[in-house]
């Protein structure tokens, strides 16, 4: 069953032009992606075991996806035995309904959250707000974009499109509105201190804490959270109720598998050998324990994932959301994440979004957001065949007739002419005759049909007076090079 993802109602051309026209955004994205990509390269180069570990982690993820249903059952049983409530949820509505009714039962009003791309995918904040709940994002980047009423532009660094000056102005404005002292400067220290101060109050007042999960270990029934800020620990331990919302793709088989992959989010994401905080949760507060939530609810969400398990795109489910592919993608570096039009951007987003939500959903993603440079393939620690997926998604779109008739006919004619040497020669003589009307100063400056886009911004040399084929034919009989 396909999933439901949020989408920007603006058409692709508008989203693209908005991004390309925003030089501040492009500068911010460029500097963040370059910094993260360089950090990853340095971390791998200085860590002799990195490749061996990466492959072991990849294999652990692949094994888990191949056996996802029995592993989910095992996980559910273990977590239930530890006192957690485990729920299989289909999509956005089921998840939101569950949280809303839980809040009603508990009389809860305030929710704190740690970073979760899945809840972005489920548009959960909006749904909870509609139900009257006050939701506070506590990851620094998520806090920033929540104040801005924006969505994440990067899977790992949600506010990557904003710079320090912009964040300083935002916090000043927030401070004035809330009647508290603002940050003393736009340095990282004072900005972080302001956010920490504001968030502390939210942590202490919250009735429900919502986190995602980076990994779920079936063997031990463990929820694993990886952060660099420590906010997830607060979200998971201070409020009386903890709700984990995780995709079914997060499950791993064994504790050894977790050990194999645990470094990868930080190593491939930010170039650290391990995240600053790695949190392992196995259940609610045990009897006699002084701390921890009274209730633990674990929602295991499908939203279009199950349909991929047995198909050619199953490796997409091994994604660990490190963002390495975003950081090296030339197109992402130009337009940033919002241009993609839904929750996930970068190479994995352009591939995964139509797979989760159906080929009709943002159909421009496979075609317009990838030059097939393969930088993502090189960067992905899980070896997801992103470039192949781009091409086969395009093939499926073409095969299902989702392309303009003119384009289809052009390719058909092009393919027919060029797959026969004789027809190819005929094409050359037609093109030579036609190109006379498209030249200026000896260069091609315009063209009809499929090729028109080229000439919006670039020239081309004309077809040569003598092609290599023609030259060779003239040379061949004697075997001598003609003058």
């Amino acid at each position, binding site marked *: 069953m396909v999933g439901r993802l949020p989408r920007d109602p603006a058409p692709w051309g508008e989203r*693209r*032009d908005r991004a*390309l026209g925003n030089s501040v955004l492009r500068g911010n994205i460029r500097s963040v992606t*370059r910094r993260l990509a360089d950090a990853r390269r340095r971390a791998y180069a200085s860590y002799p075991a990195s490749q061996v570990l990466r492959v072991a982690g990849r294999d652990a993820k692949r094994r888990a996806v191949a056996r996802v249903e029995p592993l989910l059952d095992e996980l559910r049983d273990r977590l239930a035995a530890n006192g957690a409530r485990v729920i299989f949820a289909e999509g956005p509505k089921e998840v939101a309904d569950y949280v809303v009714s839980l809040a009603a039962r508990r009389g809860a009003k305030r929710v704190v959250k740690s970073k979760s791309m899945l809840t972005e995918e489920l548009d959960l904040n909006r749904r909870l707000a509609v139900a009257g709940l006050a939701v506070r994002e506590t990851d620094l980047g998520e806090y920033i974009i929540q104040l801005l009423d924006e969505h994440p532009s990067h899977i790992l660094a949600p506010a990557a499109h904003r710079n320090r000056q912009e964040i300083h102005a935002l916090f000043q404005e927030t401070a004035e509105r809330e009647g508290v002292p603002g940050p003393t400067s736009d340095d990282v220290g004072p900005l972080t201190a302001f956010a920490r101060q504001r968030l502390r109050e939210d942590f202490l007042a919250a009735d429900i804490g919502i986190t995602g999960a980076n990994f779920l270990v079936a063997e031990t029934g463990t929820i694993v959270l990886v952060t660099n800020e420590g906010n997830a620990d607060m979200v998971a331990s201070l409020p009386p109720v903890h709700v984990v919302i995780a995709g079914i793709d997060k499950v791993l088989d064994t504790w050894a598998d977790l050990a194999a992959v645990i470094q990868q989010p930080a190593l491939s994401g930010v170039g650290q050998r391990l995240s600053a905080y790695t949190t392992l949760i196995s259940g609610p507060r045990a009897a006699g324990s002084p701390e921890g939530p009274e209730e633990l609810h674990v929602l295991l969400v499908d939203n279009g994932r199950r349909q991929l398990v047995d198909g050619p795109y199953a490796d997409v489910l091994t994604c660990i959301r490190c963002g390495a592919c975003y950081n090296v993608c*030339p*197109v992402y570096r*130009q*337009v940033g994440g919002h241009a993609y039009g839904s929750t996930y951007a970068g190479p994995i987003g352009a591939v995964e979004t139509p797979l989760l939500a159906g080929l009709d959903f943002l159909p421009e993603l496979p*075609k*317009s957001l*990838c*030059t*097939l*440079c*393969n*930088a993502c*393939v*090189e960067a992905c620690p899980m070896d997801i065949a992103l470039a192949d997926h781009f*091409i*086969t*998604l*395009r*093939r499926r*779109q*073409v095969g299902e007739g989702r392309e303009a008739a003119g384009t289809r006919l052009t*390719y*058909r004619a*092009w*393919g*027919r002419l*060029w*797959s*026969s*040497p004789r027809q*190819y020669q005929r094409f*050359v003589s037609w093109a030579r005759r036609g190109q006379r009307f498209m030249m*200026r*100063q*000896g*260069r091609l400056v315009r063209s009809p049909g*499929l090729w028109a*886009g*080229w000439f*919006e*911004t*670039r*020239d*081309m*040399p*004309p077809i*040569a007076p*003598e*092609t*290599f*084929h023609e*030259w*060779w*034919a003239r040379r*061949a009989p004697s075997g001598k*090079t003609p003058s």
Partner: protein
Amino acid sequence: MERVDLFVSCLVDLFEPETGRAAVAVMERRGAQVGFPSGQTCCGQFAYNAGHWPEAWAMAKALLAALDAPPTPGPDGQERATVGLSGSCVAMVREEYPKLLDWAAGQPGWDTSWRVRHARVAGRLWELSQWLNRAAPAPSAHQDTRPTRVVLHTGCHMRRVLAAGGDAAAVLEGLGVSVATPEDEDQCCGFGGTYAMNEPKISTALADDKLRALRATQADAMVSCDWGCLLHLGGRLSRTGVAWSVLHLAQLVDLADRGELAPAQLARAGRFVREVP
């Protein structure tokens, strides 16, 4: 004497035949007997990448048949190689055709012998700089003592799919040419086959970034093993009124062989050297 069949690529054939002629001269100077399988047109990569696989498969079959044809005159038993003048097209035949073959195996009219033919063709197919690095060196006439500096743009398929990213630089260094390294050198130039036509705005933004980095090296010329990237970047130079010498590696090696590699000569040698007002 090694027999070498030339696989020129459609872009060289149609737009830059001088590169093909330079390659013939370069390979003959290194003792190769050069042949040209005349049935070749295009590897079909543009259609393959755009998702038009029936068309790509038709072109792939034509190319495999051409490159697998028995050699035209030449004694039997000779060692034989095929040399391609595009890193991207060589990567297509060697690394992507197997995926196309797997798909075609499920289509009507499939003939298993295509796998055999592909294995034969792919097994002896090299990109020009790969071949040059293992060929006997030519008696190079390059004696100019003034340093000639070029900037090398390595196409993404050559770098990442063919994994031959270092080969062209090795060829240039062997010729005594100094190779400048641009900032973000492994970043895509934005060509991407039909991507350049489908998404001209993003493609051009990438070209402008790439050109800024390449031009910042102040090299005498820009060199690549792929006319796809070069026509895109050069076409952008042309449209923005910038003149620069843009050459394929084969042309640069040919100039070196002929002792015409002084910076002033190089600056006049390539495509896009004339400013268009």
